[in-house]
């Protein structure tokens, strides 16, 4: 099934067909008379992908953030935090999704947990490292003023750690969005459905799906970089800009 090399103008035509698929509902050649494509379906699948990503990230943050903050505050468990970060990168997402579908079951809940597992390592590692890197002087000053541990974490360490933590969140989100693309293998229909199911959507649909996924991922990344900028304490913004 090798696509033969096409002259440049035909290339434009293929992308043109793909955009047509996005904006106009059409009777696909393969779909046997049923309409596919169109903005409604695109937005519906995109919404599911965002929903899945959001749920997984929320779960991952709820787990990884407190652990990372506490370990970082105490200065313990560096080996663990770093090791988890490194091993997390080695997890093949496809195997996790496929195993989930075969062994545990398809569906939103199962997939959310699987994606959250993938999302935890960068957040955990970055949170730990971020808190460790907070200027000890600031921490000691706060402790000297009589702040409790929670106060120190909440009012000193966390705000100063935000840039690095957000960096981890962004990395995690990129991974989760990318993995959510293959979620249709496990029954949760995201934009990846267009890409994986050439059966139904045809070549136009596949390309359209690829374009939509790319745009979604880039837009989300842009959004998060803005969020990171806003959450960074003003005094650190110059430093953060250089580190980013």
């Amino acid at each position, binding site marked *: 099934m090798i696509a033969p090399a096409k002259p440049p103008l035909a290339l434009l035509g293929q992308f043109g067909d793909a955009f047509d698929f996005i904006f106009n509902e059409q009777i696909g050649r393969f779909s046997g008379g049923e309409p596919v494509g169109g903005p409604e379906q695109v937005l519906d699948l995109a919404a599911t992908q965002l929903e899945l990503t959001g749920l997984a990230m929320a779960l991952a943050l709820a787990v990884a953030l407190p652990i990372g903050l506490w370990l970082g505050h105490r200065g313990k468990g560096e080996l663990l935090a770093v090791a988890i970060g490194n091993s997390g990168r080695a997890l093949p997402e496809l195997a996790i999704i496929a195993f989930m579908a075969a062994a545990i*079951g398809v569906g939103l809940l199962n997939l959310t947990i699987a994606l959250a597992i993938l999302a935890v390592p960068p957040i955990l590692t970055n949170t730990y490292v971020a808190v460790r890197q907070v200027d000890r002087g600031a921490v000691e000053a706060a402790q000297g003023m009589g702040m409790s541990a929670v106060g120190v974490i909440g009012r000193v360490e966390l705000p100063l750690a935000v840039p690095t933590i957000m960096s981890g969140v962004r990395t995690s989100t990129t991974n989760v969005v990318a993995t959510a693309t293959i979620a249709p*293998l496990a029954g949760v229909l995201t934009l990846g459905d267009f890409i994986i199911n050439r059966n139904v959507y045809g070549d136009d649909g596949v390309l359209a799906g690829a374009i939509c996924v790319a745009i979604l991922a880039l837009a989300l990344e842009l959004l998060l970089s803005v969020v990171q900028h806003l959450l960074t304490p003003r005094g650190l913004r110059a430093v953060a800009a250089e580190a980013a």
Partner: protein
Amino acid sequence: MSSNPRVRALIAALLALALVFGVTACGDDDDDDGDGGNGGAQVIESNPDNGDIAITVGSKNFTEQFILGEIYAQALDAAGYRVEKDLNLGSEQIALESLRNGEIDAYPEYTSTALTSFFEAAPEDVPADGQQAFEESEDDFAQLDLTAFPPTEFSSANAVGMLRSQAEQQGVETISDLEGEAQNLTLFGSPECRQRIDCLLGLQQNYGLQFDKFTPVDIGLRYEVLDNGQADLSIVFTTDAQLATSDKYVILEDDQQVLPAGNVLFVARQQTVDEAGPDFGDTVELVQEGLTLPVMQELNARVDIDKETPERVASDYLQEAGYVE
């Protein structure tokens, strides 16, 4: 080449016996005496003239298709053609398109699928007799510059599968029994099922069933979703190994004949058939003689249950049935 030592011993014994019989019985090779039946298994002879002809064999995207594609591909290879495989293409529409634009030269299709999906026949009009269905489709294929070869002995159909325990509990035996229940049940099937008249579309239109939800999943997961409790109903195939080897599943009777059975036709480009000469058709018709229903289910079982690769299963079949040495 099976890894199971017991099967290996069996094959060795078979080959030894076949050798003895081969020496004493028919020494003739490409002798199409049309005997049919067990004793007439002929060994495929490699014809050096075929070496210039390149053939790409394709298949659709589930176990039975992988096995069939491998069988035909390996058989044609044994006959001396230069064979390439492009299996796992996708649904029937994709396979047909690949065939028509030359990406592949041939693939195995079912009469029922061809008639309902390509040639817009109504499912109840698909003949139950394989030969008849084949003849009905010949002209239609010819109009697309394609040639269909005579059908296999076995036929397969889509079916609505359910866990036996659940079917008994709900007192459901036929698909019509689902009326009134369907809106509480979830159905899982392949992505293209949504658009096929011998699948979801037919269930909706001809049976008038509205399911609570239809979830498309990879065909390979059709039994997993029943096991996991995700699916109340799942679209399965009548030739599936899982149905034959386990009591766990039951298929609902298709009382309104919306899910017709189809025999396998090897469909090839007319151009390829003309260039390839008589060995092409002879080889195809020869190797499919052994594909009875129990045999096909056995081969399916070797892949789906024993987890052997389709390639090995196909080559074992060709050897065991005596088409290849």
